[in-house]
C-alpha cells in the first residue's frame, strides 16, 4: 500500500492525524519521525497510548527513517509519516529522494515565524527549505484536514489564503 501521506504537524499525534486523516485514508501504520521522541522511552509511550488499537505506531529518528524508508513504503498497510517540524521533513525528503508530496498540516506561531495561513507560520529559513523541496520536484501543499482545499506552496507563501 505504501505511504499515503507525509505530514508536518507540530502537535505530532493528535486528533487531526489519527481521526481526521487516519480514518478516511484507513491508516494502519503511523511512523513518527522525530529525533527527540525517538530517544525517549517516556515520549514514545506517551504517543503510543494516543493511537487506536488498530493502528501501529513506530518511532524513528531522521537518520533511521531514511535508512528504513524502503521497508516502510513496502509495508502492506496504508501508512502515514509524520514529523513535528520542517527541518526533519526536509532532511527526510533529501535523504530518501523518493518522496513526491509533503503536507503542511500544522506549524503554529512561535517567535520569528510569520503567519501564512491560519495554521501555518514560517520563519525565513523554513520558507527557504520548503521552496528548495518544491524546486527539487516535491509537491508541497498546506491542508489541515481532508475536506479542506490543498493550498499550493506559492499561494501559502504569498499569505493570500489567510
Amino acid at each position, binding site marked *: 500500500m505504501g505511504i499515503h501521506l507525509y505530514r508536518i504537524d*507540530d*502537535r*505530532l*499525534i*493528535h*486528533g487531526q*492525524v*489519527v*481521526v481526521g486523516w487516519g480514518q478516511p485514508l484507513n491508516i494502519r501504520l503511523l511512523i513518527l519521525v522525530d529525533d527527540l521522541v525517538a530517544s525517549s522511552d*517516556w515520549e514514545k509511550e*506517551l*504517543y503510543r*497510548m*494516543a*493511537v*487506536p488499537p488498530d493502528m501501529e505506531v513506530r518511532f524513528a529518528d531522521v537518520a533511521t527513517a531514511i535508512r528504513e524508508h524502503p521497508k516502510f513504503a513496502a509495508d502492506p498497510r496504508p501508512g502515514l509519516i509524520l514529523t513535528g517540524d520542517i527541518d526533519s521533513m526536509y532532511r527526510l525528503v533529501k535523504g530518501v529522494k523518493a518522496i513526491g508530496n509533503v503536507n503542511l498540516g500544522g506549524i*503554529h*506561531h*512561535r517567535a520569528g515565524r510569520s503567519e501564512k495561513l*491560519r*495554521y501555518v507560520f514560517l520563519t525565513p529559513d523554513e520558507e527557504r527549505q520548503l521552496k528548495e523541496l518544491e524546486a527539487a520536484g516535491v509537491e508541497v501543499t498546506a491542508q489541515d484536514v481532508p475536506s479542506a482545499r490543498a493550498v499550493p506552496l506559492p499561494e501559502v507563501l504569498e499569505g493570500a489564503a489567510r
Partner: protein
Amino acid sequence: MNENAGAGPDTPRAIVVGHGEFAAGLVSAVGQICGMADKLVVLSMMGMTPEDIEGTIRDHLARTGARVIFTDLPAGSATIAARRIVKNEPGLVLVSGVNLATLLDFVFSTDVSPTEAARAAAERGKASLIVVGR
C-alpha cells in the same frame, strides 16, 4: 470534605479543554442543566502550539487551584499536554473522553475531593453510553 478538596465551594474544581468549541459547549450545557458551570474552567486550544497548550493548562491550574483536567480525545494534543503535566504533579487527575454525564456527576460531587469526584464521574460517564435499537 476531604482536605484534598483544595478549591472552595464557589471556586472552579476542574479545567475542561478540547477541540474547537467542545469545552465551551459542554460547560454551557452543564450551566443550562444545573447552573453549576462556575465549577468548571473552559479552555480552547485552537491555533496553539503544544507548548502553548501545556503552558495555558498549567497557568489555569495554578491560578484557579483546580486539580482535575477533563479532555475530549485520548489522541488529542490537550490530552498529550495534560499527561505531561500530570506525570510530575501528584494529586492531579486527567480524565480523557469526557462527556456531559461525566461533568454533571462531577459538579454535584462536592462532598469529596475533586480527584475522587473525577474518578467516580468517569465511571458514571462510561455507564451513560448506551445503544438503543437493532
